[in-house]
């Protein structure tokens, strides 16, 4: 099985139809296990109390906001380099999901920041760079919506997506490069994680659950976009025939 085999939208839709029920099931089961662990098993933090539970949704949202952008960047490469016909569908459908995840990462972080830092928002490097990521998602959506021709819109937004990739390392390393209020990375770091297993395991399960959710929504959105384009083509053929 190669990626190019699924350049045919019909074959892709067939695969999606087979995968989707399993994916939905896996997402729901992982969420059930993850939420049960978070609410009934994970200990309250000795300093933060129960508010630490915001971490179990905030951190996956933040990871996925970047993962989603990298998905779009990979799709952009697919559009520009290999001209894969589904790459631009993938990029277009990932943008609103990424924007939503980024917004939720900012919102949950803000709700967590109020009791912990005493403020909803600080202009710290990590927060600001994520806000810039959010604006970039919105700009990409605006660009896709403004250019009428789908192919041209796909190429223009692919170029912008690749340029915007420079922001991703800035977000990742902002906590190391600048002295920020936001804490540095504690899960994936040199020398092992600094989080205790009782908190790390629920966090990782929640991260898997949200990643599955992302793939699930993304595939559904791609399916809808393919169908939407078919309807558009059918309408155009119909309009041409009616003359």
């Amino acid at each position, binding site marked *: 099985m190669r990626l190019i085999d699924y350049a045919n939208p019909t074959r892709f839709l067939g695969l999606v139809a087979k995968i989707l029920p399993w994916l939905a099931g896996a997402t729901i089961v992982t969420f059930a296990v993850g939420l049960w662990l978070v609410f009934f098993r994970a200990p309250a933090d000795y300093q933060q109390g129960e508010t630490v539970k915001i971490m179990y949704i905030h951190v996956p949202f933040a990871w996925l906001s970047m993962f989603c952008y990298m998905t779009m960047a990979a799709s952009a490469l697919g559009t520009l380099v290999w001209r894969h016909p589904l790459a631009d569908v993938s990029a277009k459908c990932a943008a609103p999901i990424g924007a939503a995840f980024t917004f939720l990462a900012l919102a949950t972080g803000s709700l967590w920041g109020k009791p912990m830092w005493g403020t909803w928002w600080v202009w710290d490097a990590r927060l600001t760079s994520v806000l810039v990521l959010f604006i970039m998602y919105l*700009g990409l959506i605006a660009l896709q919506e403004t250019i009428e021709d789908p192919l041209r819109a796909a190429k223009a937004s692919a*170029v912008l997506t690749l340029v915007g990739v420079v922001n991703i390392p800035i977000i990742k390393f902002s906590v190391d490069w600048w002295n920020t209020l936001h804490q540095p990375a504690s899960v994936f770091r040199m020398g092992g994680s600094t989080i205790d297993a009782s908190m790390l395991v629920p966090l990782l399960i929640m991260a898997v659950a949200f990643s599955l959710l992302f793939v699930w929504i993304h595939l559904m959105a791609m399916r809808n976009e393919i169908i939407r384009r078919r309807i558009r083509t059918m309408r155009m053929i119909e309009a041409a025939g009616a003359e």
Partner: protein
Amino acid sequence: MNALLALFAREWKLAVRVGGGALMGALFFLIVVTVVPFGVGPDLNLLSRIGPAILWIGALLATLLSLDRLFQVDRDDGGLDLILMGESPLELVVLVKCLAHWAATGLPLVIASPLLAIFMNMEPIAIGATTLTLLVGTPALTFTGAIGAALTVTLKRGGLLLAILVLPLTVPVMIFGVSSATAVLYGGMPFTTPFAILAALGLFAMVLGPVAAAAALRHAGE
């Protein structure tokens, strides 16, 4: 090489002659800086503190405002198609166009900034530092903005979208531009640290901007 020099001369002449609108940016810069004291009040101490930031924001907005002329005029009169078919590498052509555009619209901003800094009651050393950072920083804004100008070239009214696309990309330039100007005022860190990063960002934008803008122009021309 001769073709590129001729292109530079052509762009420059078109920009500074009647209808080119080169000095419009500088005028807009003056107005933005004039409007600020009406908004924040005429407190001279406050103005001298936020002066570098105001000048930078004014320069950023003025640069954005003039960017849509970068490729739009050539697209309208068909010159862009000739450039695309020409033998010179498109990346270099974009680079030359950006340089000419900067010389006509960015340089007047840099020259005007010491005068406007006096309105802001800034210290002489801060005036010098801000002017220097603008001299290094405004080309970076033009090169980054070329990407947005190339992406929106096919749109009839792409000016607002251009600003939305370009502004997030200019944030790093803005941060290091203002922080090197304020480093002179308040100390804490040497001027050269953020200034070196600003210069590096400028060089980075000089490479990335023309390459990405050329890619966008090629796809827009298809």
